[in-house]
């Protein structure tokens, strides 16, 4: 370091710990609430230390559901969220990979037009075309289906751009060498390009999985059946306007379960996550 400080690194440590506490506090409270019984919380007597109802609450949340509002157990919601996140992440990567491949490794009429058509979708997030998109999905009979949940979100300008950029850096000699070895477009893609893109795909997958898992507005519109709900929608329906009826321990257990998968992905695959985040935002 540049100079010697009197109190060493005390101040930075203090500030960083405060930051960590600010960030962790709401989640700690949620966990603590999920281990206490409803009556205590409803009375406003919640303790700041974990209670003894952990197993009871989580069993009820996962397999039974709340008594009044959603009826559907959170287990089903977790399954729906998982399917949706996987379909969105894998789907986006797959269709972006092949379209970037076509745009970089082929010459064909309207190549750049198609590239720009994909690129401009960056400026059309789902929020600005809510109801017309809803109408199309309804007309196609895709409401309350996994296809309806995922298809309208599956195009990805960022992923296409990223793969295009990456393919451009792949040396031409590789293509020429595989050509000499008699490889066609499929073989080159499968045997050479895909293995090279592995890290990019993994980093992108981490980001897109979180993105898919955390979708809210779109599932809110197109799922009406309780058994098609994702966990983000389920949790909203558990909060009843009059406080007395909300089963807070179950709500908080659902909140904990809802953030567990994406947070685990971030913490366990931190390197890929940071790489993916920085690359998709460039």
């Amino acid at each position, binding site marked *: *370091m*540049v*100079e010697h400080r009197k109190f060493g690194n005390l101040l*930075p440590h203090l*500030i*960083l710990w405060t930051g*960590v506490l*600010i*960030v962790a506090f*709401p*989640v700690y*409270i949620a966990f603590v609430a999920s281990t206490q019984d409803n009556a205590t919380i*409803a*009375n*406003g007597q919640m303790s700041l230390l974990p209670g003894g109802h952990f197993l009871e609450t989580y069993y009820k949340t996962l397999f039974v559901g709340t008594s009044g509002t959603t009826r559907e157990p959170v287990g089903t919601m977790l399954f729906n969220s998982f399917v949706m996140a996987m379909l969105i992440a894998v789907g986006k990567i797959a*269709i972006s990979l092949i*379209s970037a491949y*076509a*745009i*970089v490794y*082929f010459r*064909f009429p309207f190549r750049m037009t*198609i590239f720009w*058509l*994909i690129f401009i979708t960056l*400026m059309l997030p789902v*929020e*600005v075309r*809510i*109801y*017309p998109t809803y109408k*199309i999905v309804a007309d196609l009979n895709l409401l309350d289906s996994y296809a309806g949940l995922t*298809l*309208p979100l*599956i*195009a990805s300008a960022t992923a*296409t751009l990223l793969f295009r950029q990456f393919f*451009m850096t792949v040396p*031409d000699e590789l*293509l*020429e060498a595989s050509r000499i070895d008699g490889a066609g*477009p499929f073989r080159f893609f499968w045997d050479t390009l895909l293995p090279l893109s592995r890290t990019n795909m993994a980093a992108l997958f981490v980001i897109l999985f*979180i993105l898919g*898992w*955390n979708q*809210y507005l779109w599932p809110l519109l197109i799922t009406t059946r309780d058994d098609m709900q994702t966990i*983000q929608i389920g*949790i*909203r329906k558990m909060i009843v306007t009059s406080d007395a009826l909300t089963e*807070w321990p179950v709500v*908080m257990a659902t*909140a904990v379960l809802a*953030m567990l998968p*994406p947070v685990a992905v*971030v913490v366990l695959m*931190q390197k890929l*996550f*940071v790489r993916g*985040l920085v690359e998709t*935002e460039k």
Partner: protein
Amino acid sequence: MQKQSVFHSKFLPYLLVLPQLAVVLVFFYWPAAQAVIQSFLLQDAFGLSTTFVWFENYQDLLSDPDYFSTIVRTFLFSVAIALSSLSLALLLAVMADRPLRGSTFYRTLLIWPYAVAPPVVGVLWVFMLNPSLGVIAHGLRNLGVDWNPLLDGNQAATLIILAAAWKQISYNFLFFLAGLQAIPSSVIEAAAIDGARPMRRFWTIIFPLLSPTIFFLIVVNIVYAFFDTFGIIDTMTRGGPAKATETLVYKVYSDGLLGGNLGSSAAQSVILMGIVIALTAFQFRFVERKVNY
């Protein structure tokens, strides 16, 4: 930039772009076009006939004091969320950007809220600040604050801003840290030799060199405040009380739910599209060119 050697095939490339192109045309361009067309039409009360009315929907919208205050509110929210979250994240990043023991540990503990979904963020905060049973609400009452976001619009807005800023800290922290680590230490050391104290070094060297990151993050935070706060608002206040927390996106959603005026809802969508296009263009024009001194 183009590849020198390519494959030659007449149909294969079209086949490869087909899936993405189909999704883009059916679910992006078609609805967007519908919104634009719809915004020039006026439907009668029974939905039996529509007439072409030019910009009447836009005129109605922009002369509506309700819509105007929603625009102002959305901007105020964006500024408040961006400012609070950026400044805290910058402070944390500056602290983490030094050879500290356990700095990777701090990073892990600070970045995970990125993965928490906005509606879940809303639920966490609405619980802590629930006037009758929330932990923080109790503390506030003991301090003598008359806390009731269910009735007080300003308090409800504060609630949204707090929750939204909390979630965004991790993202901003990560990019600030990356930006700080890209600054060569020789520059800072040189300034130290010239006698500049830490504060002075921060404002005259580090901060200016960080400006590309700051600009980039301002744009990202505004986009976030405009669009991603939907889930937070919907679980915390549903736009209430008395529309005190209704943003532009939330208004499109809730107006549409009531099944009201199609033309007006479409015009709102088109205005939002304009905002996104402006923000994206701004980002590419200024941020990509790397603002630097």
